[in-house]
């Protein structure tokens, strides 16, 4: 199994091993510890370094790896790119968070907190939406999200106003809701999902 640092290197071309823990990423972070992250991005970088350092001691390495993948931090990242922009070492920190999220899902390690569960559900609902229609149908997205999370009441207060403002039509909404019943990729997106699978395989083989 590849180390987290290796995964980041192949996905972003930069490596957290260059990090010297200056903390500028965390200082400028949109989210950070006070706002739901359980540690600053600077600590994530450190843990990735330590996993690499202990890679010949699999048990210790796995401990470090789990601390990263099960953290809330990687999910609370807003992908605003401020850290990547200002990093003095040129590390793609936001890209690193992407890799961590993806790896957490693949290895079934994503955090179990309610907040994270909602975020993961939204991402999954979004991708399912694309799978079904090739596009993001906002009503269908919200629908699936609610079914996944049980947050039935959230945002319901906005719906009437949205219809009023012409942002949503009741007929469209019904059509969208019906689309939820479809399964498997639609014809217009099949080739993209196949291509994604091919890319993933190729990356894995490297």
């Amino acid at each position, binding site marked *: 199994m590849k180390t987290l640092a290796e995964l980041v290197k192949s996905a972003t071309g930069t490596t957290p091993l260059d990090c010297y823990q*200056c*903390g*500028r990423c965390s200082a*400028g972070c949109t989210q950070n*510890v006070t706002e739901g992250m359980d*540690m600053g991005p*600077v*600590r994530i970088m450190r843990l990735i370094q330590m996993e690499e350092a202990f890679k010949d001691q699999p048990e210790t390495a796995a401990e470090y790896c789990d601390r990263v993948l099960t953290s809330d931090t990687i999910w609370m990242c807003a992908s605003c790119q*401020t850290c990547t922009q200002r990093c*003095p070492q040129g590390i793609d920190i936001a890209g690193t968070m992407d890799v961590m999220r993806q790896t957490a899902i693949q290895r079934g390690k994503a955090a179990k907190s309610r907040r994270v569960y909602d975020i993961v559900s939204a991402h999954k609902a979004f991708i399912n939406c694309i799978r079904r229609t090739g596009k993001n149908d906002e009503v269908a997205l919200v629908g699936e999200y609610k079914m996944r999370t049980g947050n039935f009441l959230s945002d319901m207060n906005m719906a009437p106003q949205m219809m009023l403002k012409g942002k949503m039509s009741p007929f469209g909404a019904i059509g969208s809701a019906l689309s939820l019943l479809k399964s498997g990729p639609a014809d217009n997106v099949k080739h993209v999902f196949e291509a994604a699978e091919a890319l993933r395989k190729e990356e894995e083989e490297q």
Partner: protein
Amino acid sequence: MSRIGVFICHCGENIGKTVDCARVAEEAKSFPGVVFARDNTYTCSEPGQAIIREAIKEHGLTAVVIGSCSPRMHESTFRRTCAQAGLNPYMCEIANLREQCSWVHSNREEATAKAIEIVRSVVARVRNNTPLDPIRVPITKKVMVVGGGIAGIQCALDLAEGGAEVVLVERTSSLGGHMSQLSETFPTLDCSQCILTPRMVDAASNPRIKLEMYTEVEKVDGYIGNFQVTLHRKARYVDWNKCTGCGACTQKCPQKKIPSSFDEGMSMRTAISIPFPQAVPSKPTIDKDYCMKLTTGKCGVCSKICKAGAIDYEQKDEHFTVDVGAIVMATGFQVMDTDKFPYYAGGSHPNLITGLQFERIASASGPTSGEIKRPSDGKPVKTIAFVQCAGSRDKANHVAYCSKICCMYTAKHATLFKHKVHDGNAWVMCMDVRTPGKGYDEFYRRTIEHDGVHYIRSRVSRIIPDGDDLILMVADTLDGGKQLQIKADMVVLATAAVPQPDVQKMAQTMGIAYDGDGWLTEVHPKLRPVETATAGIFLAGACSGPKDIPDTVSQASAVAAKVLGLFAHPELQREPTIARVNRCAPPLQSSCVGCFTCESVCPYKAIERETLRARDGSTRQVAKVNAGLCQGCGTCVATCPSKSIELDGYTDKQIFAALNGLV
């Protein structure tokens, strides 16, 4: 017949790890002319050199090839070794097996194969070498020091003490440099002016030191021992011979709103001004960009007020040449401006200042007379934040290197602040605090333990202006990256030390090297730290990289020792690798047809004409090289249509043989 000895150095692991040195030596034995070959762990060590000397004697070697580090490193060492054993030093050649082979390749097989080829080529070349004798040239025993900061002053004083004539060139109108701007100096906190000013006066009054103030170096010609430096003395519009330095003119000048560069733009000066009260020499200059008389023709107040009649609006720039035997670069550094940091309050906020500006604020002779007041509204500062590594150690956005002096001067700033504002709060945002040096770490710890300065280990991401105040966005990396917002009355950025912006241009005219960041490069960072690749030009102080005062002063004295060492010789021996137009005798003839294309090509005007007389009495003119002037570039050789010029050490025969050895 050549009897060549080949010595392959392992350089410890450096070469031996990647190149099979024993095999290279074994292969070398089969090359034409080689009578002896062996490998050795450290050839440059004394035992290693002894092996060479013994082999020369025992095997009657006529030439030596050493496979080792770059010739730029140890060519002279090994040539000396050969000379000790009675072999002409120019019969020794280096095969570069380290910098250009073992260090850049990892496959042992390939690297060894390449090493064998390199050695074969050098062996082929050395078979065509001829013994050469060094050239002797006279030395002008006068030295030019460029830059009148502490480096230049110290160097000039030491040189004068040793009996050398010194020309000290400074482009501003006073000696002193950055050190004269500082308030106190770490780690002893003695007043900078108090220790510097006596030195400035000493330099100005020393009979062996000639000051060339308000003057810049325009051009450098010549070579070690024989430089011709063209200087450009800018018009001062004041006759310093007449001026008594009374300062009356500076009081009366109506043009008063010019930002003072000595005070880093935080106070105003007049158009005719002396940069600071303790300036040496204490003579004013007129700034022609601001003087009303010079810009509009109206005014002339200073001329009326001057009792000595020293004001001269007609003074012109002067250009003149000085002959010197050595040049010392002591051109110093600058600090990055705050405007390089858009994420720090847009890079421009009156209360966002550089460390050098803080020095002026803290200085008793500064714009606030040493009281810590902020520029925007003059309010006494209660909370101050210092941001370290502003630009330094930031390879993605600014410069990759550590500016070296900031950790200490920030600790000093914070201490000075706490000494002046007892109830104030000082924050330092730092990464690693680097304080090696005598008494340095103790000073830094005292800043925290005794003076109560708060250090947060974080790099500041953003500074947000909040009216006159500033809010710093930081994250405490020692607390899991917890975000903090620190509000401060004033923020001091420890901006990176950077090279003087125009020093590269000067370096180009002198033919000395500078690195990717623009710092002048020493010929060897450890063993020859004050010499440049151009013989006769030396480096003192921060022009070669950020340095604190003790390091700068030590370097300046080291340079003085180097120059005095050079001047101790009655004459110079120069490398004999110079061009030569062929002659065959008797009577003296040459294949030169006298087209004198070489004359137009030579950058040193080293081509002369000589009349040859043939057996039948006819005469003709042919080219001849002046050995004193030729620098050995060989451009004439490549351009000569009849191929009648050779460059000793790089003859066509040698290159041809080297090429044959390669392909």
